[in-house]
Each structure stands twice: as structure tokens, then as C-alpha cells.
């Protein structure tokens, strides 16, 4: 088999699929897409609920349908795909080692590499929920796989910890399957998922969502028998006297997603401690030229549509990179998170691109706020431009445009801050 490519994409979820198609549109010739699972689509094939594609296709699709549209197109444009193939190493000079049953170990050399490995779920262990270790504790995504792919119910009486999107969607899914979802507990005073999911998955099914609550103990020998839940104070510490026991056989966790960047780190690429993804420029190119990242491996997105958009940015950028006619700014512009901003992607702007009108910046806030002003501030404290927004919350990514006209040669830093208007 051929072992040299112009572009190797690692991961066949919505990010990798978009990169492949867009790179092809931008005349990238030899493309190889590597996917460890049996099928393409990443996590989408198990997301059988709808709500995908509203932004990108302007219609409501299920996860498999959304993925299906890209997979069909991919087949038409003869992109090499290797499924059930696990990448185990990437080097800074873009050599890739992968393994599968048929070929054994593959040593591949590429001119450009795109990291699109997605993310994993934070576990009960990572947040140190005390108690015993019986069967019946699942991350929400694993439970989703058991139900929607394997066809089995992992539980009958459920308590969900965390109001992340997958947790809320699974609360509804399990309810529809006849399970009793006794409560969704959220340690913060606000939901960490989309507002739309709170309404459609919990409120519509009368599933109680308890803010400022957490599980303080899981009990059960062989199988979960009950959990103790308690209200927490401002420092997120359980308030004595508020404990309450809920009997259940299953605990689902939806307490955050972590970009899977072990391969990235092994390649020597620096990560942003907040996003836990690589630090990138406006092309989503990491500090190693020609290695790009997009989708949930870069930062956790709340909609697949945004992931596709990011994949397309990378697809175009790979085209430019391979053509080799890019023009760097004399110095990069660094973008910093200011008041109430957890992070901004991209972290810096490196290129001068003729004809470019604006750059879209994505960010997450630390805490919810209503009627806010988003200020883009330069090195000298001058507001370059500002936007108003009715509501911001950590569960929903915020994006703003940075007009190209503002980016003069001397500009070194931009800080973005969000404040009540």
C-alpha cells in the first residue's frame, strides 16, 4: 500500500470529514483519512436524536443523518479511508505510525497532518466522587453507545450527575426507554449544556434538575444501590444537613469532555491549559507548521455544525500550506481571554491574507451573564470593536468577528472581555 501522502487526517468524525472534503475542493490530491472505529462519523452514529445541521444545512437532522451527508460525498471524491486503524504515534516531522488487523503496522509520511481525534468524557474517578465501585456507573456517552449502538439498557433507575449535553440527552433517551430518571444534579448554579437541551430533554419530561447539588457518596457492593446527594455552598462544598439519599441502580456522569491530545503531546506540540487542546493560529495550525487541529480535539464544541465549520477552515488552510505561498505578518497578534472569558480560539493570528474581510473568534465564558458587551481591546487598552449579546453562558460557545481592517501592522495583542452592559 501507498505510504506517502499530501495530507493525513487522523479521525473520521465531523471534523475529519469536513477537512477531507474541503481539502479536496482546495486541490489537495493525495488524502488519507484514518479512523479507529468500524464506521465513519465519530460520535455521531450513536447520537440518534435530532438537532444536528440547523446551522450548517438549515434543517434538523439526526446524528447519523448529519454524518451520512458527509460520508456520501466522501465516497464520491475518492478519498482514501482506512477504518479500524489506530494511530499510535505522530512525530513532529509528520511521520505517522498506525496499526490495524490487515496491514499490521503502517509507517506513513505526510506533507500535512490534521489532528481530529475528538475528545473523551471526564470520569467519576477524575472528579473523585467518593464511595464504592460497583457496576452501574457510566459516563453518559458510554451509556448512549450501549443503548443506541448495542441495543441494551444499562439501567432502570437512574441519577445523572452533571448537566452536560450528553447527560441531558441521555436522561430523555432513558426515560423514553422506560427507565426512571430520578434527578439530574448540577454542582453549578447553571446548566453546563445548551439551554435548548434543558428545555427539550428535562423540562418536557418532568425530570428534576437540581442546581447547586452533587453526589457525595455512591453506595453498593456489586451494583449501585443508592447515592447520597447534597446541596453545595459557594465554594462547591457539600452543606452538612442537606444530604438526601436516592435509591438507583445506575449513575450517569456528564461532567465534561476532555480533548484527546496524547498523540499531540507525544509529537511535542504545546497544549493550552484551559482548552486542553493545542495552541493554534487562525488556520488552526499548531506550533509545528503543517500540523493542524480541529473539532473537539482542539476545544470542546457544543454543536457538530461548528465543528464542520472549523474543519472547513482547516481544509482550506491545508490547501494554502501545500501550495506554499503563504505570507506571514511581521509579528503574530496574540489573543488573550479577559474578563469572564475562559478561552479564545485561535490563540494567535499569523498571516496576511489578501481579500480576507474578517476572522471568526470562538470563546467560552466562565459564568452566565445577561445583557453583556463583548469588547475587543488592543495593547493600549483601546476598544477596537464591541458587540452586544443578550445572554452568555458557559454551555454555549460565543463567537465574534474580528474585522481585518483593524489588524494593522503594529498590533501585538488583543484581549477580549465580556462585561455587563
Amino acid at each position: 500500500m501507498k505510504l506517502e501522502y499530501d495530507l493525513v487526517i487522523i479521525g473520521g468524525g465531523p471534523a475529519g470529514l469536513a477537512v477531507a472534503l474541503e481539502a479536496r475542493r482546495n486541490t489537495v490530491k493525495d488524502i488519507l483519512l484514518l479512523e479507529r472505529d468500524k464506521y465513519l462519523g465519530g460520535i455521531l452514529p450513536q447520537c440518534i436524536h435530532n438537532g444536528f445541521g440547523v446551522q450548517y444545512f438549515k434543517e434538523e437532522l439526526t446524528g447519523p443523518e448529519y454524518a451520512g451527508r458527509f460520508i456520501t460525498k466522501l465516497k464520491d471524491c475518492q478519498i482514501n479511508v482506512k477504518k479500524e486503524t489506530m494511530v499510535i504515534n505522530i512525530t513532529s516531522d509528520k511521520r505517522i505510525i498506525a496499526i490495524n488487523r490487515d496491514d499490521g503496522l503502517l509507517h506513513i509520511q505526510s506533507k500535512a497532518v490534521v489532528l481530529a481525534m475528538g475528545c473523551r468524557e471526564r470520569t467519576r474517578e477524575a472528579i473523585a466522587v467518593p464511595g464504592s465501585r460497583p457496576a452501574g456507573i457510566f459516563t453518559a456517552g458510554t451509556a448512549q453507545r450501549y443503548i443506541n449502538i448495542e441495543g441494551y439498557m444499562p439501567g432502570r433507575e437512574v441519577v445523572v450527575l452533571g448537566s452536560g449535553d450528553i447527560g441531558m440527552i441521555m436522561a430523555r433517551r432513558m426515560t423514553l426507554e422506560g427507565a426512571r430518571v430520578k434527578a439530574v444534579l448540577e454542582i453549578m448554579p447553571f446548566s453546563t449544556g445548551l439551554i435548548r437541551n434543558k428545555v427539550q430533554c428535562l423540562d418536557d419530561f418532568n425530570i428534576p434538575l437540581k442546581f447547586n447539588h452533587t453526589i457525595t457518596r455512591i453506595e453498593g457492593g456489586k451494583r449501585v444501590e443508592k447515592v447520597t446527594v447534597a446541596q453545595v455552598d459557594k465554594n462547591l462544598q457539600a452543606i452538612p444537613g442537606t444530604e438526601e439519599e436516592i435509591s438507583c441502580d445506575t449513575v450517569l456522569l456528564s461532567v465534561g469532555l476532555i480533548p484527546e491530545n496524547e498523540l499531540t503531546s507525544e509529537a511535542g506540540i504545546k497544549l493550552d491549559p484551559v482548552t486542553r487542546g493545542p495552541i493554534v493560529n487562525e488556520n488552526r495550525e499548531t506550533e509545528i507548521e503543517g500540523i493542524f487541529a480541529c473539532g473537539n480535539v482542539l476545544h470542546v464544541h457544543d454543536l457538530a455544525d461548528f465543528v464542520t465549520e472549523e474543519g472547513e477552515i482547516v481544509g482550506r488552510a491545508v490547501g494554502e500550506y501545500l501550495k506554499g505561498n503563504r505570507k506571514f505578518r511581521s509579528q503574530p497578534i496574540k489573543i488573550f481571554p479577559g474578563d469572564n472569558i475562559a478561552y479564545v480560539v485561535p490563540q494567535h493570528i499569523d498571516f496576511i491574507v489578501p481579500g480576507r474581510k474578517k476572522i471568526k473568534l470562538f470563546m467560552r465564558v466562565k459564568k452566565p451573564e445577561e445583557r453583556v458587551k463583548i469588547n475587543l481591546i488592543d495593547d493600549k487598552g483601546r476598544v477596537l470593536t464591541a458587540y452586544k449579546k443578550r445572554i452568555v453562558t458557559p454551555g454555549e460557545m460565543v463567537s465574534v468577528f474580528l474585522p481585518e481592517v483593524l489588524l494593522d501592522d503594529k498590533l501585538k495583542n488583543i484581549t477580549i472581555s465580556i462585561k455587563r452592559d
Partner: protein
Amino acid sequence: MKTDVVIIGGGVIGTAIARELSRFNINIILIEKEDDVAMGTSKGNSGIIHAGYNDDFNTLKGELNIKSNPKFDKLCADLKILFKRIGSLVIGFSQEDFRKLKELKENGEKNGIENLEIIRGPKLFELEPNLNPQAKYALYAPSAGIISPYKFTIALADNAVINGVKVLLETEAKDIRIEEKQVYGVVTNRGLIETRIVINAAGLHADEIAEAAGDNFKINPIKGEYQLFDKQWGNLVNHILFPIPTKLSKGILVAPTVHDNLLIGPNSYWVKDKDDPATTKAGTEEVCEGARKLVPNLPHQDLVASFAGLRADIEGRNDFIIEASKKIRGFINVADIESPGLSSVPAIAEMVSGILKEVVKEISPQLELNCQDDFVETLVEQPKFADYLDKTGEWQEIVEKDTDYGEIICRCEKVSKGEILRAIHQPLPARSLDAIKRRVRAGMGRCQGGFCSPKVLKILSEELKISPLKVSKKGPGSEILKTKTKEIIKETGVKFKDEVRV
């Protein structure tokens, strides 16, 4: 069922005894109440092979630890498990601590350890750059090492099985049949096993077994909680770091594991329940605080697991019980095996072998204890993909012979399907998700089985030819899945109508 010897308990002690006795041409059955060996104390401990300076040589603890320590290199090489002699440092901060370190050193030297050294000043930080800068002294014991206690136990069991020991899992001793002060059998949940010799290695439950045979002591569990951090942090320390020991324990340590994780713990406090290794919030905080005294900057954001173990302590007694019962013939107690129990394993097994010879002489002189000519001392090395990441050419050859080794099931720990299949068919086979995890590490990594457990579940169901609904985490009662989809609705008739907005 009839046999010459029954060993009760598949912890590190029971399995080591089983392996040692399998040198003889006698019939041995080991019974274990759980679905795998290493489900008790031998799973939840620090995994330290101590140098042997803590205990007095006149105690069994002191003597057997010292005798065992040098044997680990060969034993682990034979069993094909990792043992790393990385050395330990007991850290002191004050003049008072310095005195205690000197006492420990003197005791160690009395025990015959030659290479103990007290280290101070900059050398301390050369050895351990991340050590608390306020540390002043350390007792350095180069012969201390680390091991995976459950892998050790499983390997001992595998080796015993290869040499003819029958291991009966999910088999619990309920009573000891005694006639005229002589053992006649063990009553189990699966029926009577006739035997004239019983070895009680039941760990936390050894007192209940002993009581059934008329011996009296009471085991009070002492809990110890741990935290384990991601593999990228195993090199935060280079040695096993201990605080100054107290009467009750060796204190909260910081150490790498043989799999390159970073381990901190244990705390220590009495609990009532012998079967409840739950972790607690207070315990977690105590462990972190204790560990921070040695290494101030711990990678709390990369916590991979918490767990706890229970020490089988007899209050007021500070030594192992390894002896033939004085009341009942044919009954041997191996109890109160607290720390350094793991470190003393080879010598404990040999001592029990000696006791067995005496007992046999007394009660069954017709039973000849001859060594088997064909005793197999070593296990065969089983290739693990994670060990071949820089020898991919060699792994290619393995995949070409068996394509299952080309399919990676656990991405965090890089475990191939071939390794999982092997675990299901090894001499002491894995029958549950946790048993697979302990053998080949699938599910042990940072995602804690989030991605691979559905796949491992499927493989188990196919290989064992059981329904996926029967696959468990750790034996009957801990099945992962409840029903097929649509079943609950069929049972209860509850259905949501279309009018619900979805």
C-alpha cells in the same frame, strides 16, 4: 470432591502458598469466594517491596521481609511480571526526625541490610527534584522496590494452575468439618470438599474461618485510601517517598507504580465493614494533604482513579500468625498478614511449606511429599503491544501470525484484542471486565474504560458464549447491562406519546 490440601483465599498469600505447594505431588484445591483472585487486600495496597528496616528481626514480619526481599528479582523474572528495585527514601524535616531515621537505620543494619544511607543537603534534591524544599534528611534504602500486587497474585495463581492446583472461584468456605479434633473437610456454597489439611489464608475473613475450626482471634479492618494519577506523572518522583513512620503505619507515601502512574496514600483508620473498600471525601483530603508534605505540587487535574484497601489487623497484636493450630490437627493459620505481607510472600510460602511437612508427618504419614519432577517454575512471556511501541517491526511479525494482535481495543493503555483473548484463556482465566483490566490493563487508563468496555463486554460474551446481559464487572450481581432496549416499556406499558415535543 476430595483432595489432599485446601487453601482458603486467593489473595497473594493463598496463591503464593498454592504455587509453593504445587512443587509436591499432592492434590491441592484453592478456593476463592470472588470471581477472581486478588479481590481482597492484595488488590488495594501500595505494592511496595520493603527493604526491611521497619520491623524487628525477632518478629516474623522482620524476619520474613528480610528473607524475601532478595528473592523478588528472580521470582518476578520467572513469573514475567514487572518488579522495579527503585529504592525508598524516608523523609525527615527536623532534628527529631533525624533521630528517628537513625533508629530505623540501626534497626535495618541489625536486620542485616548493608546499604542503608542517611542522605542530607543538595544530594537529596538531586535524587528527588520535586521533593518539598523543606526536607532535610532521608534514609535511603536502595533495595526497596515496586510491584503490581494484583498482577503478582494472578501470576502466582497461573503458575500454580499450570502445576496442577485446582482453583475454584466463586467458592466460599462456609464451615470447616472437624471430627475428633482433626480436619475432615471444608463446607462450601458448592458442597463439601473432603480434605485432611486446610490452610486458612482468608485475609480479612481469616478469623471467621479460624473460629469455625475452634481458634479465636478477631480481625478489625484498617482502611487505607489511595489516589492514582495519569501515566505522564510517574516520573514526578524517582523513589518511593515515605514520611517518618508511626506505630500504626508507614504513613502516606508518594511513589511511581510499575506502570508509570503516580500513587499517593494510604491513610489509615479502623472501619467496621470487611467488604467495603469505599473511598471517602475526608480520606481523599487526608491523603492529598499527607502527600503534599512530601511533594508539594501534585497533578490533581490528572487524577485517574481512587481506591481503598483494608488491612487485616488483629488489635493488640503486631505480628503475622503463621502456624499449625494447636487445637485442631490439619489446620494451618496464615493470618494477620498486614504490611509487609506482600514483601514477605516468598518466605511466607516457604515457611508454610515447612509447616505442611510437619503436619503431614503427624496426620497422614502415608502421604509422601515428593517434589514433582516436572514442576514448571516459569511462565511464558506474553507480548503486550504497549511494550512494543518502539519495536514495531517485531510486533508486525506477531500481527502477521495472528491478526487479533493488530486490533487495538483499549486506546489509553494500547491493548490489542489478542491480549484480551489471551486473558480470557490463560491458566486462571478472566471472566469479567475487572478481571481483564487487572490482567492486561484494558480499561485501566485515563478514560477508565469509557471507550473500550462495550468492546471488551462483547468479546467476553462471544468467548464465554454467554449473553451480553450476563457479562459482569466483577462476578454475579455486577452485570453491566440490565435488559435489551424496548423491554422495560413492554414490561411496564409506560409509553410517551407523540405529543411530547422532542
